[in-house]
């Protein structure tokens, strides 16, 4: 019997030819808190999904040993039976049900199929007491704070006798005091012999509670060490330490005067309207400039730009100045009329109308331009523009009236870009413009961005990939938990400096 409760050996997993994990190994000692660190998209979540049965045995290569025996999981249920429980970033609780019902969902105590709510209540009370949680088991989950919900979720996992608990960014939406409670509970669990894998990029938390740290980067294990031998700087180095490759076709372009300014933007959570997710952010943009916005997931970047564009569904406030004049943007249409266009982060959900054709998707935002008598679309004019942009952006499609869902990710993204460019914007906001597309298409999109700024268009680009931020931007602002933590002219800036800022450290 080894001291390890879990050994994952040489795990490789690819998605449609793209390697998400490449020979990753992870060894977790019994009873420890093991932190798993890495940038967004490094492969942490994929690895944990394998461990929890979301990606079943056979969809990856490599071996997993759990308590000394080979682990073969066909489903999440299998993993639960083995005592492996995962708690996701997004909560998996049913908001309209009570705490007790959530804890016992799928597992309800019953007599002949009739739920025994009294027993459920008593059991729940017991479980909550273990955590010193003063919550009435009958409370609806939606009436709890996010922190308490998180704790209920952990209680739920432990009620299934989990002895390996996986927490995926558990503190990303918690307040300071809730984080404190959570960390204390984890310490308490450790004393009771529960092993815990803790995924986080909040390194101060990692330093506080972890025994061992493993760092993953680009789907590979970079290193694993006792926390005693590590510092935050060392971990950051391991997380980002990669060479900037020749992926970024930087082209010279002149930057003009200031054209666009955002002052004191505050954005509030949709579900918890008094929680600020963007705090007093101000920035400016110059003509022909590419401004990169760096930060970790949950830093409030998407919320910031969608509020600027007028598409954020929750509350927000702040002032916007375009060419020195204050403008009011109430909805995306206002933004587009002022020459501000946005390519959203979630291409499928927000960017494309999947049943409509390539052509129709490209012109839907600009359709007024082709309006002639009686509101008729001048389809010939439309087709000319479409062909022009298909050529300009080298969109590969067998025909123009093919439903856009049939294109590859990169070409779909180009269609969304074309849609926005047809509006002839002055300011173009790109939210994760290269997410989920292959290297070749990325390169073409970078090329396009540079040719746009050469035409005098100004670009705001959100990216979670540091090399991309550094390879493309003229200037970089870094956000951390809703605040603007740093601003850099892109000269002699290193990935380490930005990462330091993004995790809330000093500049």
């Amino acid at each position, binding site marked *: 019997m080894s001291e390890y409760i879990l050994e994952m050996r040489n795990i490789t997993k690819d998605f449609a030819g793209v390697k998400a994990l490449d020979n990753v190994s992870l060894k977790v000692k019994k009873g420890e808190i093991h932190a798993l660190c890495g940038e967004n998209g490094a492969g942490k979540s994929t690895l944990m999904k394998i461990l929890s049965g979301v990606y079943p045995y056979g969809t990856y290569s490599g071996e997993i040993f759990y308590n000394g025996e080979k682990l073969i999981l066909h489903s999440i249920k299998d993993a639960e039976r083995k005592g492996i429980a995962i708690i996701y970033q997004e909560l998996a609780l049913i908001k309209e049900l009570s705490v007790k019902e959530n804890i016992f969902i799928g597992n309800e105590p019953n007599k002949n199929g009739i739920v025994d709510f009294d027993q459920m209540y008593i059991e729940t009370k017991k479980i909550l007491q273990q955590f010193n949680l003063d919550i009435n088991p009958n409370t609806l989950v939606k009436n709890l704070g996010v922190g308490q919900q998180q704790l209920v979720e952990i209680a739920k996992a432990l009620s299934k006798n989990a002895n390996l608990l996986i927490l995926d960014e558990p503190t990303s939406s918690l307040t300071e005091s809730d984080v404190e409670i959570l960390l204390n509970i984890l310490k308490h669990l450790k004393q009771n012999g529960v092993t815990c894998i803790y995924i986080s990029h909040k390194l101060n938390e990692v330093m506080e509670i972890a025994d061992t740290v493993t760092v993953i980067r680009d789907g590979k294990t970079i290193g694993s060490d006792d926390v005693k031998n590590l510092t935050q700087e060392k971990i950051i180095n391991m997380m980002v330490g990669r060479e900037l490759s020749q992926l970024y076709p930087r082209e010279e372009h002149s930057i003009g005067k200031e054209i666009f300014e955002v002052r004191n933007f505050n954005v509030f959570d949709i579900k918890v309207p008094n929680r600020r997710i963007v705090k007093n952010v101000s920035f400016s943009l110059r003509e022909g400039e590419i401004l990169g916005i760096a930060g970790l997931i949950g830093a409030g970047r998407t919320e910031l730009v969608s509020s600027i564009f007028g598409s954020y569904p929750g509350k927000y406030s702040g002032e916007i100045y375009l060419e020195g004049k204050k403008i009011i943007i109430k*909805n*995306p249409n206002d933004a587009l009329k002022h020459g501000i266009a946005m390519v959203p982060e979630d291409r499928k959900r927000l960017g494309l109308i999947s049943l*409509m054709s390539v052509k129709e998707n490209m012109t*839907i935002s600009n*359709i007024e331009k082709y309006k002639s008598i009686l509101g*008729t*679309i001048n389809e010939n004019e439309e087709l000319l523009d479409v062909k022009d942009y298909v050529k300009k952006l080298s969109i590969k499609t067998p025909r*123009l009236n093919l439903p856009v869902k049939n294109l590859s990710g990169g070409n779909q993204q180009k269609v969304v870009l074309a849609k926005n460019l047809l509006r002839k914007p002055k300011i173009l906001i790109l939210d994760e413009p290269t997410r989920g597309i292959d290297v070749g298409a990325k390169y073409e999109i970078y090329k396009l961005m540079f040719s746009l700024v050469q035409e005098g268009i100004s670009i705001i680009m959100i990216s979670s990939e540091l090399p991309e931020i550094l390879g493309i931007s003229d200037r970089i602002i870094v956000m951390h938990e809703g605040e603007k933590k740093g601003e850099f002219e892109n000269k002699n800036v290193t990935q380490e400096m930005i990462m330091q800022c993004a995790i809330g450290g000093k500049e």
Partner: protein
Amino acid sequence: MMVKPKDNEYKQYVSKLGILNINMKLYTMLIALIAIWAIFSIATDGNFITPRNISNLLRQATSTGILAIGMVFVIIAGQIDLSVGSLLGLTGGIAAILNVWYHVNGIVSILVALAIGVIIGLWNGWWVAYRNVPAFIVTLAGMLVFRGILIGISKGYTIAPLSSDFQFIGQAYLTQNSGYLLGIIAAFLIVYLVLNSRKTKAKYNLDIPPLGIDILKMTFLIILVGLFVFILNLYQGVPLSVLILLILALIFSYISSKTVFGRRVYAIGGNVEAAKLSGIDVKKITLILFAINGLLAAFAGILLTSTLNAASVSAGQNAELDAIAASVIGGASLSGGVGTVFGAVIGALVMASIDNGMSMLNSPPFWQFVVKGLILLIAVWIDVVSKNK
């Protein structure tokens, strides 16, 4: 020089596959309709296919057909309207009350009824678009409310007889000669439109479809028009109500496929979030859609009242369900973004054909419900299966 062949490739794809693809669904529906007609013709020893019966069949299809035109728009946008049956009854009833009880001129009564249709449609649309109440609920409420108002204002009486100008719109036939004249005008229009489209395409330096295909298309359409007029002229001529259905179908088909408004409706139904981000005023368009649906329900109500020469409290009961079924049989998807006006009209014809054919066979009325229900089920099932392939 390298660009040239690529460009041509696009042109070919756009012209050939494009036209065929869009019409594929329509063709299958047409074939299904013809199959239904063939079955009934054989079963009734040819009585089904007589000019007299075809004329009746088309007249029977008008009110469902007109409702389906509006309904398919609403469905394409991802909404639903359950109130049009009651609205049909109410607007027909109001027109009849004005005309019969208050001796208002037929034309004026009709115009008032149409205006009321629009206003009630706006009411529905306002609740859906600006008060965010689900369309199902708003229009279910409307279904009850409008029927209630109709019963109240008509005091439960059947209102008849209408003045002759009111009767005219639902009962008149075009004379043989004006029928042929209309056919000839339609033929010229078809030729003009096709040739004109070729000319403007040439002007824009875009690819022109092969002349052969266009000639084939024109011939097919002209034969269809000719057959339509000829057969109906063998009986009493082209019914005015059927002509109204055709004109409305043409107008709204044009709106859905050729105008900015139509394109936006499809976009909203396809992905409302993406539509919003593309700068589309979703609320305004939803409001207009329900107003259009109210207008068309009023048209249907007036035609039905005029055809029957009476308005009754039960007019249009369950008509909304027939309209929804017609739209869906015609290829619309209740999840939005898909559907055509002509498909919906053909769907209405399918429904009317089943009613008509089965009553000719003297089968008990309950069978009509059973068969229509099953056809709806199977039509959607075929659609689901073909999509999954």
